[in-house]
C-alpha cells in the first residue's frame, strides 16, 4: 500500500481512531477493545457524553490522564492508566460482563485479524494450534454488544487481504460485525455483503476492491 505512488494517504492508527470516534453519538455505552480501539477514547470530544466501559469493571473512562495525575488503581483493559469522568462507577468482573453479555452496551469497538462478508470476526488467534490464545473479553463483547464495529488495517503487513469472503482464522464470533473501519475505508456489513460508505480522499472504488478479497458494493 504505497501511498506516495498511489495518490492517497492511508490513515494511521490515530486517524482511524479519530474517524471512528466521529460516529459515536452522545449517550452511547461503548466498550473499546485493546489496540487501536483504545485510542478512540482520546478522540471523543470532552463535551460529548459517551460512557466508555472497560471489562475490568469501569464505566466512564475519560481520556488518558496527564502524567503527574495518574491513578495507579485505575487502568483500562489494556492495562493503561486512565482517568474517570464524573458519573463513572466501579463494579466487579461478573457485573462488568453482565453489562457486556446482557446486551447493555450500544457498541463495542474491536480490533480484527479478519472480517467476513457475513460479519464473522476473527481476532484472537491465527490458527487452532497456536499456543498463544489471547481471547480476553472479545468473544463476550462480539456476541453481547448491540453493535460491533471493527477497526483494523485494511490488509496485513505483507499485503494479504483481511476483508474476506470467509475467515480462515479461528472465529471470535459468527455474524457479529456490523461495520468495519480501516485505514482506507468504512464498510457496512449488510445482508448483501460489504457496502462502502466512506473512502479516504484520493482512493477510488476499484483500487479499494483490489485490496479486498470480498466483493464490495457501492453505497
Amino acid at each position, binding site marked *: 500500500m504505497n501511498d506516495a505512488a498511489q495518490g492517497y494517504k492511508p490513515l494511521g492508527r490515530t486517524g482511524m481512531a479519530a474517524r471512528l470516534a466521529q460516529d459515536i453519538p452522545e449517550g452511547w455505552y461503548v466498550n473499546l477493545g485493546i489496540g487501536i480501539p483504545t485510542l478512540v477514547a482520546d478522540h471523543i470530544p470532552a463535551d460529548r457524553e459517551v460512557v466508555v466501559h*472497560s*471489562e*475490568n*469493571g*469501569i464505566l466512564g473512562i475519560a481520556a488518558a490522564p496527564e502524567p503527574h495525575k495518574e*491513578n*495507579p*488503581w*485505575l*487502568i483500562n*483493559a489494556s*492495562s493503561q*492508566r486512565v482517568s474517570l469522568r464524573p458519573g463513572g462507577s*466501579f*463494579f*466487579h*468482573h*461478573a457485573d*462488568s*460482563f453482565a453489562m*457486556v*453479555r446482557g446486551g447493555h452496551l450500544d457498541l463495542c469497538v474491536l480490533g480484527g485479524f479478519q472480517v467476513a462478508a457475513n460479519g464473522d470476526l476473527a481476532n484472537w*488467534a491465527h490458527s*487452532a494450534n*497456536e*499456543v*498463544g*490464545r*489471547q*481471547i*480476553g*473479553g*472479545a*468473544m*463476550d463483547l462480539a*456476541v*453481547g454488544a448491540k453493535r460491533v464495529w471493527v477497526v483494523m488495517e485494511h490488509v496485513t503487513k505483507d499485503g494479504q487481504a483481511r476483508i474476506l469472503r470467509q475467515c480462515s482464522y*479461528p*472465529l*471470535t*464470533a*459468527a455474524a457479529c460485525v456490523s461495520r468495519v473501519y480501516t485505514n482506507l475505508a468504512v464498510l457496512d456489513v449488510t445482508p448483501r455483503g460489504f457496502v462502502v460508505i466512506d473512502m479516504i480522499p484520493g482512493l477510488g472504488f476499484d483500487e479499494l476492491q483490489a485490496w479486498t478479497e470480498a466483493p464490495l458494493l457501492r453505497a
Partner: protein
Amino acid sequence: MIDKFVRSMAEAMAGIRDGATVLIAGFGDVGMPNALLDGLIEQGAGNLTVVVNSAGRVHKPGAATQGIARLIELGRVRKVITSFVRAQSIAGDWVRDGRMEAEVVPQGTLAERIRAAGAGVPAFFTPTGAGTLVAEGKEVRSYNGRPCILEEALPGDVALVEAWMADRWGNLVFRDASRNFNPIMAMAGALTVVQTHHVCDVGQLPANEIVTPGIFVDRVLHVAAGDPKLTR
C-alpha cells in the same frame, strides 16, 4: 468474638494442599494479591490448578520472573484456566513443551463460571463462544434463536484476594479498578484468603458500602503493599 485476621503468612497459607484449585484475583497488577502469591510460592503446594485472568505477560529471556510466571516456572502448576495465554510468556513456553495444560476461556465466561460457583449454580448456558474453538466438546442448545453452549461452575479450593480495607469480620472494600475478580473469587473459594492494605474496626465500613460481606472470607492478612505497578 469473630476475628478472621491472621498474624503471619504461614497462618494465611496453612492447609493449602497439593492438587488444589487456586483462584487468583487481579487484572494487570491492580487488585492482584502479590504478597499472597509469594506466600503460596514459599508455602510449597504443587500440582495446582490456577484460575487467573491472564497467565502472565511477555517474558524477556534472562529477566527475573514473579507471580504467576514464577509459580509456573517452579513447576507447581499442573493446569491454568485463564482468558490469556501469550505465546512469548513463561506459560506459553510450558504449554508448548507439554509441561502444563491450559484451558483458555472467554473472560466473561470465566467471570460468570466463578460467580456461578459462589452462587450455587452448577452450570449455565451462554451464547459466548458458540461456533468457535471454545465450544468444542460442549453441549449446544438454542435460546432465542441463538446457539448457546453449556458452561460449568468453576469453584476454588482456595481464593487469593486483595482488598483495600478489611475488618475482623472479613468485610471488604476495594479501591477503584482493583475490585475486578476479587469479590467473585471471594465467593467461589472454599477457603478465601485476603491481603488487605488497611485494617479498620467492625462498624467502620458503612453497611451500604461493604462490597464483599465477611461471609465470603475466611482469613485476612494485613499487608501494606503500596500502589500497583504499571505492567503490560
